[in-house]
């Protein structure tokens, strides 16, 4: 078959247009998560044992914020000084009173609550207590970050094992999430934050999460710090459900006798008042 240059050009234009249309309508094979193979389940047994429930060292959190303070830039430091003064004076603003998640990176900085790790093929999952929504999915299946991830409270995390250390890279965190030194002192990361973590056992039952937090809009340099966790195996440490918003309600009855949540009376400081009986 003989085709003129002109016909060839038209054919190419049509093909390009059809391809674009096909892409636009999502044609083609979607990326899939393949079913784990028996070998992948077996390989999990070779990973370090992070089973049990992990409780944070609050004493170390308190001490570390003094010995290794967050390197705020001058504008942020001025705002932090005001928040610190308010906290010291006993009229704190409270960063988490709205019950939104402590999020990344503050969950890994100032949590008072237990957490646990789940290993499954291609993923490490962190589940926390309290807040109702403490959950991090760390993909270890070799995938890259999305080119332009939708920002979320805990960001997009990819991880890989370097020996017995899980190295986690997190981007795509909402700019509104706090970098906090306490529940009353902290500022939004303001975007473009990048967090690298190296999580590893330092003893039979002590785990360190070494963090490197880069937040160019509020910090002068990458801030390195560590979260210390202690392993608990007593069953009374099993993680329990914790829904933060529940604290805004007390248990009551409606007119039909149904068990319902009714708004609890609280003062400005968040201190609960008696039910109106």
């Amino acid at each position: 078959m003989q085709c003129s240059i002109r016909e060839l050009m038209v054919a190419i234009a049509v093909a390009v247009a059809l391809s674009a249309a096909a892409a636009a309508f999502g044609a083609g094979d979607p990326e899939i998560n393949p079913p784990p193979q028996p070998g992948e389940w077996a390989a999990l047994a070779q990973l370090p044992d992070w089973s049990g429930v992990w409780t944070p060292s609050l004493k170390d959190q308190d001490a570390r914020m003094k010995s290794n303070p967050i390197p705020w830039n001058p504008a942020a430091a001025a705002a932090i000084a005001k928040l610190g003064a308010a906290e010291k004076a006993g009229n704190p603003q409270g960063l988490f009173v709205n019950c939104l998640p402590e999020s990344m990176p503050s969950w890994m900085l100032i949590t008072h609550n237990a957490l646990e790790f789940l290993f499954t093929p291609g993923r490490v999952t962190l589940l926390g207590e309290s807040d109702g929504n403490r959950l991090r999915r760390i993909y270890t299946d070799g995938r890259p970050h999305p080119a332009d991830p939708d920002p979320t409270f805990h960001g997009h995390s990819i991880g890989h094992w370097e020996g017995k250390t899980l190295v986690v890279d997190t981007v795509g965190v909402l700019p509104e999430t706090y970098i906090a030194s306490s529940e009353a002192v902290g500022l939004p990361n303001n975007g473009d934050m990048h967090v690298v973590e190296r999580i590893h056992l330092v003893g039979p039952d002590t785990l360190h999460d070494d963090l490197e937090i880069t937040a160019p809009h509020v910090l002068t340099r990458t801030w390195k710090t560590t979260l210390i966790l202690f392993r608990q195996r007593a069953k009374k440490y099993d993680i329990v459900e914790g829904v933060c918003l529940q604290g805004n309600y007390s248990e009551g009855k409606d007119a039909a006798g149904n068990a319902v949540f009714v708004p609890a009376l609280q003062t400005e400081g968040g201190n609960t008042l008696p039910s109106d009986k």
Partner: protein
Amino acid sequence: MKFKSLRCVWVLAAALTAPAFAHHSFAMFDFNNTVTFNATVTEFRWTNPHVVLLVEASPKPGAPTQIWSMELTSPGNLTRMGWSRKSFKPGDRIELQFNPLRDGKHGGAFNRAKLLATGQVLTSSVRDAEKPGLK
């Protein structure tokens, strides 16, 4: 500005006070000051993020009773210290120790309580036990 109805006022008031709810800092309490008095439990709310104990007491002998509100850590943390949702029930007589609110209102951060009927003591500091393998 006029409100169309009382309902508006309530809704607005709820909206304005809502940010002060729930997962708050404990900086509002004066940890350099400890108060102890005997009280009667009126409510025990086993809820996240902070368990709440409400008591009725006369801080000074012979004075009229007042309702005081005690804030504690989470149910999860308290469970590990041997607490349960049944640790207190309305009517329980207790000797209560707490760090009061700095603003003088009738509230505080719970330290410890002794049930007068049994002598059982309950404490609540999450910083007291920090090591692996706690029993």
